[in-house]
C-alpha cells in the first residue's frame, strides 16, 4: 500500500474514533474557552492592551490545548494494545505517525476556526479583515505543533510521568514557532496589517524540517 493511502487509512481510523466519542474535541474546546476567560480575568485588558497581548494569548491557549490533546493520541492505543496491530499492518511505519499527525492537526484546526472569532469578541479586536491570513499563520504553526507533538507523544507513551513530561519536551522545541507565530499575528492585528515573509518562511521551514526528520526517524519511533 502506498504511503498516501496507508496514511489516509490511519487518519480515517482516528477520525472515526473521534466522531464516535468526541473525547478530544470536547475537552479541547472547553479548555480553550476556559483559558480565554481566565486570561481576561488575569489581565483585564483595555482595548489597546488587548490588541497587543491577544496574539500571545491565542498562541499560548492553542499550545496548551495542543499539549493536552496530544498526550492521548498514543496513550489511548495502549488500552487494548492496538498499536501492536497497527505495527503488524503491512504499511510504512511513518504512515502511522503521519495519519495521527494529520488527525491531530484537523482537531486543532477545528478548535481554531471556532475560537478565533470567540477571542475576537471577548477581547474586542476585529479580526475579520485579516481572517484568511490569520488562519494561514495559525495553520502553519499548528502543523508544526502537531508534527513534533505527535512524535513526542509516541516517545513518551511508555515513560513514567508522561503527562508531566510531554509539555516539558514539547514547549522548548516549539519556541521558534511561538516567536514566529506571535510576531506574524501581531503584524496582522497591528495598525498596518501585513505579514513579514520571514515569519511565514520560519513557520514553513519548521514544518518542512520536522516532517522530514519524522519521516526519517519513524522506523525507530514505532517499533517494539
Amino acid at each position, binding site marked *: 500500500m502506498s504511503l498516501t493511502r496507508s496514511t489516509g487509512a490511519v487518519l480515517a481510523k482516528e477520525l472515526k474514533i473521534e466522531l464516535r466519542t468526541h473525547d478530544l474535541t470536547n475537552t479541547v474546546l472547553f479548555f480553550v474557552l476556559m483559558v480565554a476567560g481566565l486570561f481576561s480575568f488575569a489581565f483585564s485588558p483595555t482595548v489597546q492592551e488587548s490588541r497587543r497581548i491577544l496574539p500571545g494569548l491565542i498562541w499560548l491557549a492553542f499550545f496548551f490545548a495542543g499539549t493536552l490533546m496530544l498526550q492521548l493520541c498514543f496513550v489511548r492505543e495502549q488500552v487494548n494494545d492496538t498499536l501492536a496491530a497497527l505495527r503488524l499492518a503491512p504499511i510504512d511505519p511513518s504512515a502511522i505517525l503521519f495519519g495521527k499527525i494529520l488527525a491531530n492537526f484537523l482537531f486543532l484546526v477545528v478548535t481554531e476556526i471556532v475560537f478565533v472569532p470567540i477571542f475576537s469578541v471577548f477581547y474586542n479586536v476585529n479580526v475579520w479583515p485579516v481572517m484568511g491570513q490569520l488562519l494561514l499563520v495559525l495553520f502553519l504553526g499548528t502543523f508544526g505543533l502537531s508534527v513534533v507533538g505527535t512524535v*513526542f507523544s509516541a516517545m513518551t507513551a511508555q515513560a513514567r510521568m508522561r503527562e508531566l513530561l510531554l509539555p516539558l519536551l514539547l514547549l522548548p522545541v516549539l519556541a*521558534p514557532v511561538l516567536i514566529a507565530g506571535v510576531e506574524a499575528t501581531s503584524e496582522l492585528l497591528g495598525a498596518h496589517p501585513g505579514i513579514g515573509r520571514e515569519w511565514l518562511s520560519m513557520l514553513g521551514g519548521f514544518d518542512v524540517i520536522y516532517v522530514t*526528520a519524522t519521516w526519517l526517524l519513524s522506523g525507530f519511533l514505532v517499533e517494539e
Partner: protein
Amino acid sequence: MGPAGDGQRQQIDGTVQEMEMTTKSKQRVWGLAWVATAILLALAGYAIFFVAPRELTMGNIQRIFYVHVATAWCGFIAFFISFFGCIGYLASRQMEWDWLAVATAEVGLMFTTVVLITGPVWAKPVWGVWWVWDARLTTAFILEMLYIAYLLLRKMVTEPGRRAMISAVFGIFAFLDVPLCYFSIRWWRTLHPAPVIGGGPGSGINPVMWHVFLFGLAGFLALTVILVRDRYRMEALRQKISELAADLEEREESLESKEVTR
C-alpha cells in the same frame, strides 16, 4: 550447579578482573590528566586577572569574557558531539554511542549554565540590565531548557535500550531546533555584542587578550574532555552493574526452581 553455570561464572570473573586491570593502569593516566587540567586552569585564572590588559571602556568586568566565551564554545562543542552520539546510536544500536550522547549532554548543560550565569554578571554593569531577550541569550536559554528536558526524559524511561533510542530521537529533534531558534530571535531583536573573534572586518582583539583567551579555552577544553570521559565511564560501569544484577537474579531464580522440584 551445571557446567553451563560454571562457564558463566568464569566469564563474569574474567570481565571483573579485566575491568580491574584496565582501570588501574588507565586511572593513573587519567589522574595525571586531571592534575594537568587543574594546573592549566589555575594558570589561565592567573593570566586572566594579571596578564590580560584592562579593557578601556568596560574595565575589569570585561575579564569575564575569557570564561564566558570559552565555556560557551565548550558547551556548544559538547552538544554538537551529543548530536552525533544520538545519530551514531540510531545508526549502529551500540550502547557506547548512547553513553557518549548523555555524557556530552550533561557536560554541555553544565557549561551552558556557567554561560548563563556569567553573562548576566557581565551585562548588568555594561548594558545596565541583567538579562535581555536577544538572539544569543534566548538561544542559550532554550538550549538549556532542551537539554534539561533531554535528561529528564532519560530519567523517566527505565529500560536502557528503549531509553537510548527515545532519547536519541529527542536529541536529534532538540538539536535541529537550535538554528531555528537562533534565526527566529535574530529577526526578532538582537543586542548581544557582535562576535569579536572572526566576526568580519573591524572585529578582533589585542594579541595579549587573544593569547590569554586561547589559554583559557585550552583549559576548559581539557576539562570538557576529562569530564566527558569520567561521565562516559560511569555510564559504562552502570551498565555492567545492571548486567551483573540481572545475572544474579537469574541464578537465584534457577536455584529456587531447583529446590521446588526437589
